[in-house]
């Protein structure tokens, strides 16, 4: 979604990292700035945008449960810090989800906040002098995986 609206210089990498646990470390290795965009667990209503810095994470002021099986951001950063290869700055741009159940789409409140999240990521980059500008002609995101199934899974518990 970010890529559909904004373009960045070649020194910016946009990665879909999933939930790699400690395997996150190699991707954060020696970066100047890391912005993590994900779902966050906060005492706010679904769809609320929450922005945290590394201190919030380390001090656990932010009760982070970024995804269903916790990608290990805190541990990866701590490890990199000790090894001397931590990113100079870490920011988490999070949205409070409606639910973390099984599925492949976004809930309506998360989807509506996502464009605000995207604009905030661009602002954070620009504020730090990083090349990032709005595309002249925005592209529609190709969310092909949301269609094409015959059966919709309903969690039964």
């Amino acid at each position, binding site marked *: 979604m970010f890529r559909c609206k904004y373009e960045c210089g070649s020194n910016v990498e946009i990665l879909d990292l999933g939930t790699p646990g*400690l395997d996150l470390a190699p991707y954060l290795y020696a970066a100047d700035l890391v912005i993590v965009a994900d779902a966050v667990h906060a005492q706010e209503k679904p769809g609320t945008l929450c922005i945290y810095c590394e201190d919030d994470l380390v001090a656990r002021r932010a009760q982070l449960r970024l995804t269903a099986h916790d990608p290990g951001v805190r541990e990866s950063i701590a*490890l990199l810090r000790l090894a001397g*290869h931590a990113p100079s700055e870490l920011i988490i741009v999070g949205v409070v989800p409606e639910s973390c159940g099984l599925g*492949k789409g976004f809930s309506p409140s998360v989807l509506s906040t996502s464009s605000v999240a995207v604009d905030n990521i661009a602002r954070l980059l620009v504020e730090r002098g990083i090349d990032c500008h709005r595309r002249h002609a925005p592209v529609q995101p190709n969310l092909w995986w949301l269609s*094409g*199934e*015959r059966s919709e899974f309903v969690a039964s518990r």
Partner: protein
Amino acid sequence: MARISIDPITRIEGHLRIDVEVDGGTVQKAWASCTMWRGIETILLGRDPREGWVFAQRFCGVCTTVHAIASVRAVEDALQLEIPANAQYIRNLILIAHALHDHIVHFYQLSALDWVDITTIPKADPARAASIADGVSTWRGNSRRTLEEVQNKVKGLIGSGQLGIFSNGYWGHPAMRLSPEMNLILFAHYLQALEFQRKANQVVGILGGKTPHIQNLAVGGVMNAINLNSLATMNMDRLGMLQSLLQELVPFVQQAYFVDACLLGASYPEWFRYGRGVANYLAVPDLPVDAKATQFDLPGGVIMDGNLGSVRPVQNWRDEAIRAAVAEDVTHAWYLGEGPQPPWQGKTDPYYTDFREDGKYTWVKAPRYNGHPMQVGPLANVLVGYASSHPLTRKWTDEAFKRISSLSGPNVTPEDLQSTMGRYLARAIRSAMLSDLALQHWQLLTANILKGDDTTYNPPKFPQHEIAGVGLHEAPRGTLSHWVVIDKGAFSNYQAVVPSTWNASPRDEKGVPGPYESSLLANPVVDPSKPLEVLRTVHSFDPCMACACHTFDASGREIAQVKVL
């Protein structure tokens, strides 16, 4: 009698709960329970088999690649579709790089601190540590200066009074027995490992287009364009980059990781006596060296009752015996169904009951091979290779045995490998083998391209009738199989039998426990409030519950909790 419940047991990510009953200082009974349910198979029903791998690689957040590979292999098997030699080599290089990354992370970040007590590091003499390390290895990261720097970092960490992510270790536990110098050497490599995980990732990224979640696969081959005259495709520059990355990775594996695993084996000889568990082993052949996949660089086979002489080789992926032998039992798992179900007929209908030790207690099904529980993983890989006189397996296994005895450790035999320490050593042996194979497969790819072959893809054609296939892969944690049924060009069934399902299996209808459960029996537990020994044995399997179980986590717990009941 003390009842200990450890939840979750995996060091960072994962959802494994282990319950043990301890009496007289040893484990008498054990239960392995997975507290999450994986449901991606359900999402795959009705979808186009050509895109199945894109979803399947989300089974697990860590081992994404392995599921992508098993998925395309399953569909190719159903279609009996051969893929080009270049596609085999490119896939193999990705698999080797991924496996090396995974094994390095397991040894250092996920389990070394069960054996290495970092709180003793400030007492180490860095000069002595450097001389010990130089005596056993030519690794460049063992200099006195390097070790001093690491020691200062640890002093700083301990001095701050905030151990942070290290605050959960069982520091000072009587079962921690390495000298401060050895702890310093291993912890230095623990930090250096990060750089090499990155290099392994870069190999996957160059070939896969992106990592994690590679983009280059297709049912029928790979989507990498090969043209030595084009800047945008696989050309000599890219091949050169791959070669240098692999050449940098190999020394870390052979001179640091492999040597460290031998040091652990020599320092903790008693752990070759604990943790045997289920002595039936299953490994499938992998790293095919020809388009038709008739010859493999990693052998497969089946060993029953720990009898290495009885090994039945598995020659290739068409092995009929495996297809007929595998079934999953849900007597003790939170699913509906009765009796063992072959995966092609398998169902995944959840039925949650809460933890009932005599009833259902886990989200993991109980896979069985002709009715028997099987242990999978690097140990199965190494035992099968050793028993079938596979030269590369013998080379590195014998080298490990020689090193351990020269360090005044025990005289280890292949029989002794069937243990907690054996699983650590086997993973290091397999990594050393893979590091040799990395450059060989790079050579196979380069030679084939220079010969003028630029094909990477054979297009699939789907019949209107029902077909079934199985995709096999010897993944870092062991044998992985994806079982698919395709009807009118869409998935009508999809079942993944993953390595940790074999190893974390619950009891079956006959009450026979799985590998984790039985490996814990007779394990010592000196202090039930600090069950370090239980962690050692469970971690020796490299547990990864994200994919073993079928995603639900209502708890959001971050760090292991130990409850002594």
